[in-house]
């Protein structure tokens, strides 16, 4: 299965390279498919003056006020992200991305797999894959379901669940990968604004919880929730998980553990430069159960009485079959 994805990724990657070449010639029109769509391609994000969050290790960071970016090896002058009026404006960068498979199957031997998110930066001004002009953040999120976090405390010598917090729409899966650690990419309030990163995941407590639990306790429950999800492998954070393999082509591989709940996964790709969000892109991938796996799961949840009877029949038959088999052998 992994081989097949790999193949499809390669094929798709080749395709998107072709698309990029065509698009950058014509001036950068975002191509959107049925399942994908550019979202919030707000041009006002580009000219906004913002101090870079942290200096990049690889490139000497130009002051945003300076009109000419000092490129180390090539002499072609590039405008700074905040191009002053009157200067020749390059078309704004846009990001496009796709996922290696439209749907991923959870089969009976599902041991976990991976999803590859890849894409391109249109109108890339990056001189080489290593230049580090852009930061890309890939966040894949699974559908929300309510979850209960319980806390144990010692009650008369026994460790019992004594308090609980209910959260609405907790993402079943959240994997974030980036070109470098998130805190180096942008200021924390910028990340918080777009809900990027494990700390900024929107975990809203249910009404009855906010009424019964004070704010500091609730914070403990929230951190516990993401810690438990991290331990289950359902929430992951890969600081260097996105790599550029060309001036504009990037890819990221995200692990899907075996216990990831089925459903729609939303992949969001964010393009940052110097701490400012330039563009973002959203695409989807379905995670579904197939084969006998799906049959069992659906039967157990949708026709649970029949399922129970079916289990008993299997138990009776296997018990009788075994005794007949061994009875014959024994005698």
């Amino acid at each position, binding site marked *: 299965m992994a081989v097949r994805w790999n193949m499809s990724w390669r094929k798709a990657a080749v395709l998107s390279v072709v698309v990029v070449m065509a698009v950058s010639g014509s001036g950068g029109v975002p191509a959107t498919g049925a399942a994908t769509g550019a979202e919030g391609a707000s041009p006002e994000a580009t000219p906004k003056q913002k101090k870079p969050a942290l200096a990049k290790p690889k490139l000497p960071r130009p002051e945003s006020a300076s009109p000419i970016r000092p490129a180390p090896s090539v002499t072609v002058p590039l405008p700074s992200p905040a191009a002053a009026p009157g200067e020749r404006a390059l078309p704004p960068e846009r990001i496009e991305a796709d996922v290696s498979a439209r749907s991923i199957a959870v089969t009976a031997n599902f041991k976990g797999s991976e999803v590859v998110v890849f894409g391109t930066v249109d109108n890339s001004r990056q001189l080489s894959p290593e230049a580090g002009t852009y930061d890309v953040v890939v966040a894949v999120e699974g559908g929300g379901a309510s979850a209960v976090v319980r806390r144990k405390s010692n009650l008369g010598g026994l460790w019992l*669940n004594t308090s609980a917090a209910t959260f609405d729409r907790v993402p079943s899966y959240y994997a974030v990968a980036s070109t470098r650690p998130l805190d180096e990419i942008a200021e924390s309030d910028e990340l918080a604004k777009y809900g990027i990163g494990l700390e900024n995941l929107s975990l809203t407590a249910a009404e009855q919880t906010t009424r019964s639990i004070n704010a500091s306790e609730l914070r403990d429950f929230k951190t516990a929730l993401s810690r438990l999800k991290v331990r289950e492998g359902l929430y992951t954070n890969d600081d260097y998980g996105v790599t550029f393999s060309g001036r504009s082509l990037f890819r990221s591989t995200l692990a899907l553990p075996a216990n990831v709940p089925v459903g729609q996964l939303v992949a969001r790709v964010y393009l940052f430069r110097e701490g400012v969000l330039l563009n973002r892109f959203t695409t989807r991938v379905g995670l579904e159960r197939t084969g006998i796996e799906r049959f*069992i799961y659906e039967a157990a949840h949708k026709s649970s009485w029949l399922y129970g009877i079916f289990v008993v029949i299997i138990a009776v038959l296997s018990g009788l079959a075994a005794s007949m088999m061994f009875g014959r052998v024994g005698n």
Partner: protein
Amino acid sequence: MHIYLPIAEMSVNIFLFLSMGAAVGFLSGLFGVGGGFLMTPLLIFTGVPSAVAVGTGAAQIVASSVSGALAQYKRNNVDLKLGLVLMAGGVAGAIIGVQMVKILREIGQFDVFVSICYVLFLGVIGTLMMIESLSTIKKKGAGQTLSARRTGQHSWVHGLPFKMRFTRSKLYTSVLPPLAIGAFVGFLVAIMGVGGGFIMVPAMIYLLRVPTNVVVGTSLFQIVFVTATATILQAATNQTVDVVLAFLLMLGGVVGAQFGASAGAKLRGEQLRFLLAAMVLLVCIRFAFDLVAEPRELFSLAKG
């Protein structure tokens, strides 16, 4: 080689669970017990959610006791009428137990409840078995002859109303005690994932005074039907029966039981009971330890 358990929602090593089934099957063949009180704890210790371990344990017991029950029935060792009364109680107990599982899961106290039940039952039974086997070993060592325990034929139990005649057991007694015993055992099946033979057999012998030749057959007969009922109810109410897991355990279990039975023939009864008592106490201690030791993670996560 891994397999995904669709209800437990975890990916497990096939061979680990096959050998777990085989080991418990071996022990149950060796000791002549159902093995549910070893299987369900083992599942919990390997990380299967308690409720799934309990629900699936019941399904596995159906498989491991059905052929024994059939054999006993063919040998005319089943008191059908008494079995049906016990079963009626058992089904009622299972219905109550399954509802209790549902409520306890909703309030997040099921895990600790199961642990406490196991500590209590395994503690009492393990200690009694240990004392009994040790005193038998000592008496045999001292050269004393042993006679089967046979106490008086009547007690307060037989004075209760709603009397019924059980011809096969040569009993004329009230239906209330067998109903109550059946209900209690059915309740245990639902909340602990055990067959309950370790309660049923002594209760039939000492409380109901059922002749020993029909005790095992009748109790097996009751266990098959009550565990089957509990399985269906757990599946319908709590969705906690994992057919893939159950099948792995059955497969390992039936093979292990064959070897256990032949190995058991070579060991003396009181030595076997001593070993079993030791094992029961170990499982009990493990549960007790988990209850009182400070957990490394105080928080836990459940579906809302």
